[in-house]
């Protein structure tokens, strides 16, 4: 179902829950995987995705229709992830200024729901050498195949900066593979 139709249904109190169920069905997997690749651990992703949908439920009536619904949903999910990662950094006594995502390496190692082969493991390790924001851009482009202008709306960053960030990330990952071969 089209986003516009879901929003119309949501505006009517009688069909509000039905509309939310449709939205949930349409976006739960996309948002889950977006979150999961950022926070690595399934249980953390599960908590965050639930919080995200509760926020969506509470605020969907305030959503301005001049924006794309899915970019708004992604923005909520991304902000939740960033907040979570900052808290995790503080818990692990990692400085917020520290750009490296290596503090998540143990999470990947301990995750019971990561069953990657050698190459997938290596790719994830390489991604974790990137700073959080670069990692975010890489995941959104490489795995989720989002367009730069969509990413720009979600992240509030210029297309040029996003391209530069992605190119750099790909180069670093290629270098990681080269160095660890």
């Amino acid at each position, binding site marked *: 179902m089209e986003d516009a139709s879901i929003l119309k249904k949501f505006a009517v109190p009688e069909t509000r*829950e039905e509309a*939310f*169920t449709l939205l*949930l*069905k349409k976006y*739960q*997997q996309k948002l*889950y*995987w977006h979150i*999961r*690749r950022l926070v690595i651990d*399934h249980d953390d992703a*599960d908590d965050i*995705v*639930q919080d995200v*949908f*509760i926020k969506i*439920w509470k605020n969907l009536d305030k959503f301005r229709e001049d924006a794309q619904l899915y970019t708004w949903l992604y923005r909520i999910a991304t902000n939740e992830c960033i907040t979570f990662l900052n808290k995790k950094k503080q818990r692990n006594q990692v400085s917020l200024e520290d750009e490296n995502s290596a503090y998540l390496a143990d999470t990947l190692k301990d995750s019971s*729901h*990561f*069953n*990657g*082969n050698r*190459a*997938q*493991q*290596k*790719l*994830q390790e390489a991604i974790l050498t990137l700073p959080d924001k670069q990692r975010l851009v890489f995941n959104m482009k*490489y*795995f989720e195949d989002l367009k730069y202008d969509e990413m720009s709306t979600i992240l509030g960053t210029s297309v040029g900066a996003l*391209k530069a960030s*992605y*190119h750099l990330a*790909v*180069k670093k*990952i*290629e270098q990681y*593979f080269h160095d660890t071969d």
Partner: protein
Amino acid sequence: MYQRCKMKEKEDKFGQKKAFLLDNETLSGNPFSVPKGYFEGLEAKTLFHIRLDKLENVGLKVPNGYFEQLEDDVLCRVREEKLKQLVSGDGFEVPQGYFETLQNQILEEISPQKPKETIIRKLFGSAGMKYAAAACVLFASVFMIKDTLLQQGNPLADIPEQELIQYLQLFGNTQDGMILIEHANLDRSLSELDAEISSNDIEWYLDNTW
């Protein structure tokens, strides 16, 4: 010009003047021809092409700095493709049936909560409970009063705690509890309590509750 000079040299050396003149005449003519009416249509044709060219430039523009960026973009795509060939997928998994459960969990959370039925338990619903509650109040009160009396050197202070407890267990009733509650205002200090309950009152109470 070069050809002509060359020919002249030949004439000087070998005296072939006639041959030179013949060549010169042939060269001065134009051996090429154009289709009939070519020059009449040329102007219009040229102007048409100029207009077409202008139109093409208007329709197909590229963003500023596009060609500078293009090389980087292509190289990045090549790297990306190589990486995708090397590694497919990300290796992350979810527990079986996770998304079905997730949906239900979220819908459950947003559904309006039914007002929880408040269970009213009657504390003194049964006679046993009444006595137990009274006994608890009495024990607490006895300890409080006894401590005070001990400090004042009251004769009741000599009675062992255990005996007092046994006595109250056997002969106390809910009315005792009420009397003690009335006096045992927890907001007041023990010294205030002492002032209100005299040891004679306690003795009288004990003597008359048989």
